[in-house]
C-alpha cells in the first residue's frame, strides 16, 4: 500500500503538472514506447476534413492535444459521432493486437455504446474460457460542476463498477492520473478511466519519468485515528479540506482515496476502521446501489465489530444533475456536508 497519493515514490526529476497534462504525458509516452497503442474518439484531434487548423481541439478538454501531430491520424483517429461503433472498434481491435484508448467525450454518452461495453468487452474473457484478452481503455469525463446539465454531468462509476470484467479507475490528482493511466494502457483488461471535469487544471508535482500505479492500492492523503473518510475522484479534495479543518480542532481523520473502485482496496478501508471505529464515505454518485453504499456494506459485513458509531454516507441525492447553479451546488457533496457527517459519527 502507498502512503500518500501526493508523495512521489518514484525517483528522478519532478515537474508541476496539471491533471490534463499528466494524462497527456502518460498517453504520449506509452504511444512512443508501444506502437500498438492508438487513440480514437470524437475530436480526439479535431478539425478532420476542415479548411482550418488540424488538431483544433485535442479532445474537448484538450487531454489528447498534440498527439495527432506526433503520431499521425493513423494512430490518433477522429471518428464520426458514433459511440457504439467507437467502443466496439476499440474492443475488437483490443482482441486483435492493438491497445486502443477510446474516448467518450462525456461519459454520459456511454448510454449510446453500453452494449459494446457490458455485454461484449466486459464478458469476452469469461465467456471465452479465459482465452481472450481485451487490453483497452475507455476514457471519459465525468461529474457535475460545469453547469452542463443532466446529460453531460453524470458520474456513473457505480454503474460500471457493478459489471464484472471491467476495471474502474478514478484519479483524484495529477500524480495518480499519470501513473494510473500508464497502468490502464498496459493492463490486459478493459479499463474504464474516469476523469472528473472540474479537475483538469488541478496541479501537483509529477515525476517526469513514466511509472505505473498498480490497481487496487489505495492512497492515504491524510492520516489520523479518529474517523476514516473514504472519498473518490473530486470528493477527495473535499475530504482533505474537511480533514485539515478538523485537524485544527484536534480531530484527526484517516482519508482514504481508493483510486480504483474496481478492484477496490477494501483491506485498507477495513484496517483503518479497525483503528478509528468510525466511517464516513463521500461519493458524488447517486445514493442507491452506489459506491458509498457498497463500501458501507463491506464495512458493515466485515468490520462490524470495529465500529463505534453508525456509518455515514455523503452522496448526491437521488435525482438527475440539475442545471441551475444553485441546484447543482446543492446536489454535489461539499466540505460542509463532510464536516457535518464527521461530527455526526463522533457524536460531536
Amino acid at each position, binding site marked *: 500500500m502507498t502512503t500518500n497519493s501526493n508523495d512521489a515514490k518514484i525517483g528522478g526529476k519532478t515537474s508541476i503538472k496539471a491533471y490534463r497534462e499528466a494524462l497527456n504525458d502518460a498517453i504520449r509516452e506509452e504511444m512512443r514506447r508501444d506502437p500498438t497503442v492508438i487513440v480514437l474518439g470524437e475530436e480526439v484531434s479535431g478539425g478532420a*476534413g476542415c479548411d482550418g487548423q488540424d488538431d483544433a481541439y485535442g479532445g474537448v478538454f484538450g487531454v489528447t492535444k498534440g498527439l495527432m501531430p506526433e503520431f499521425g491520424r493513423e494512430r490518433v483517429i477522429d471518428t464520426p459521432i*458514433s459511440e457504439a461503433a467507437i467502443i466496439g472498434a476499440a474492443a475488437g481491435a483490443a482482441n486483435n493486437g492493438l491497445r486502443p484508448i477510446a474516448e467518450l467525450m462525456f461519459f454520459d454518452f456511454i448510454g449510446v455504446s453500453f452494449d459494446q461495453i457490458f455485454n461484449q468487452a466486459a464478458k469476452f474473457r469469461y465467456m471465452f474460457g479465459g482465452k481472450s484478452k481485451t487490453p483497452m481503455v475507455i476514457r471519459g469525463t465525468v461529474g457535475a460542476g460545469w453547469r452542463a446539465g443532466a446529460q453531460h454531468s453524470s458520474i456513473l462509476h457505480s454503474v460500471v463498477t457493478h459489471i464484472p470484467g471491467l476495471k474502474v479507475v478514478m484519479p483524484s490528482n495529477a500524480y495518480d492520473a499519470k501513473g494510473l493511466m500508464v497502468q490502464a494502457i498496459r493492463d490486459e483488461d478493459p479499463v474504464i478511466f474516469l476523469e472528473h471535469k472540474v479537475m483538469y487544471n488541478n496541479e501537483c508535482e509529477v515525476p517526469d519519468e513514466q511509472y505505473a500505479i498498480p490497481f487496487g492500492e489505495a492512497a492515504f492523503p491524510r492520516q489520523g485515528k479518529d474517523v476514516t473518510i473514504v472519498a473518490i475522484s473530486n470528493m477527495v479534495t473535499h475530504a482533505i479540506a474537511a480533514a485539515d479543518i478538523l485537524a485544527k480542532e484536534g480531530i484527526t481523520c484517516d482519508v482514504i482515496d481508493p483510486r480504483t473502485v474496481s478492484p477496490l482496496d477494501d483491506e485498507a478501508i477495513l484496517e483503518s476502521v479497525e483503528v478509528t471505529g468510525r466511517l464516513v464515505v463521500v461519493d458524488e454518485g447517486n445514493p442507491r446501489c452506489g459506491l458509498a453504499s457498497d463500501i458501507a456494506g463491506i464495512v458493515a459485513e466485515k468490520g462490524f465489530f470495529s465500529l463505534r458509531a453508525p456509518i455515514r454516507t455523503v452522496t448526491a441525492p437521488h435525482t438527475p444533475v440539475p*442545471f*441551475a*447553479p444553485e441546484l447543482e451546488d446543492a446536489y454535489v457533496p461539499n466540505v460542509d456536508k463532510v464536516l457535518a457527517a464527521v461530527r455526526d459519527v463522533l457524536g460531536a
Partner: protein
Amino acid sequence: MPYQEDFLLRAYRSMRTIREFEERCIKEFMGGNIPGFVHASNGQEAIAVAACIDLSDSDIIGSTHRGHGHCIAKGCDVGGMMKEVMGRSTGLCKGKGGSMHIADIDKGMLGANAIVGGGPPLVNGAALAAKTLGTKNVALSFNGDGSANQGTTMEAMNMAVVLQLPHIFIYENNGYAEGTAANYGLGCDSLTDRNAGFGMPAEYVDGNDFFATYDAIKVATQRARDGGGPTSIEAKCVRFDGHFIGDPQLYRGEDEVKNARKTEDCLKIFRARVIKEGWLKAATMNAIDKEIVAEIEKAVADGLAAPRPDPSTDLLSDVYSSY
C-alpha cells in the same frame, strides 16, 4: 402572390426572433449571465421556421443540442426560454434543464437533446402515438449531419419506414459535426442518397432559402398526415457561431464565416426575395426588427430579475410523477 402576407410576416418575425435571441445569448453568455454549455443556431433560422410554421401545438418536434431556434419556431415563449438558459425558477423547465434540455411539452416541443442521436427514436414514438391514436398529427426530428452517423438515428429511420410513421427527418447540414467536417464523417458522397436507401423519399434543399425549404417540408408533412410515411429532408446551411459559444473554431477557414454572413445569410436572402417580388416592404420588416430587439431586451432584463431556484424545495422535486 404564392404566399399570404400574414404567412410571410410570421416567417420573418420568427426567423428574426431566433437571430436576435441567439445573438443576445452569445453576448449574455460571454458576459457571465448564462452558465453552462450553449450551442447557438444563428445562421440556421430558415430551416427551423420553414419546418414549424405550419405545425400545430399537437404536432411534435424533437430537437438537438442546438435547439433554441426550433423552440422559437415552434412557438415557445422567448421570455420563458431566456429564463431557462439563465437557470431561473420561472424558466420553461424551472431552471432544471438549461439550454441543452429546453423543452415545452404544451407546445409540442419534446426537448433539445444533449445526446447526439438521442432524438430520432423518441420522435418515432411521437409519430407512433399519432398513428395509433389516429390524430393525423405529424412528428419532426431535427438532426445534424453529425447525428446522421449515430446508430440510433439509422435504426429510427429504418423503423419509421417499416411502420410507415408520420415522421419527417430534417437534417440541418451545416458542414460541421462539432469541429469535424461533415463530409469527413460521412462515408458516402450524399447523405440524401443514403437516407433514400432506407426506403423513404429523400430531398436535398438549400436551407438558406426559406421558400425552397418550406415547399419541400410542406410536401413531406402532407404526405405524412395522409399516411404516406416518413421523409428525409437534408437542408444545407451555415452555422455562424462555434459548436458551442466560446468555441475558438480553429478548424474553420479564414474569413469563412465572414463571407458566409455576406452571401449565405438566410435572413438577408429572405428579405431580398420578398422585396424583389414585392411581397413585403423593407420598412415593414425594419419595424419588426425594432419590436424584436425590444422583446429580447425585455426577455434578458426579465431573466436577470427572475428568481433563482430554491434548493430546499426544487432539488428533490420532479424526479417522479408521484412519491
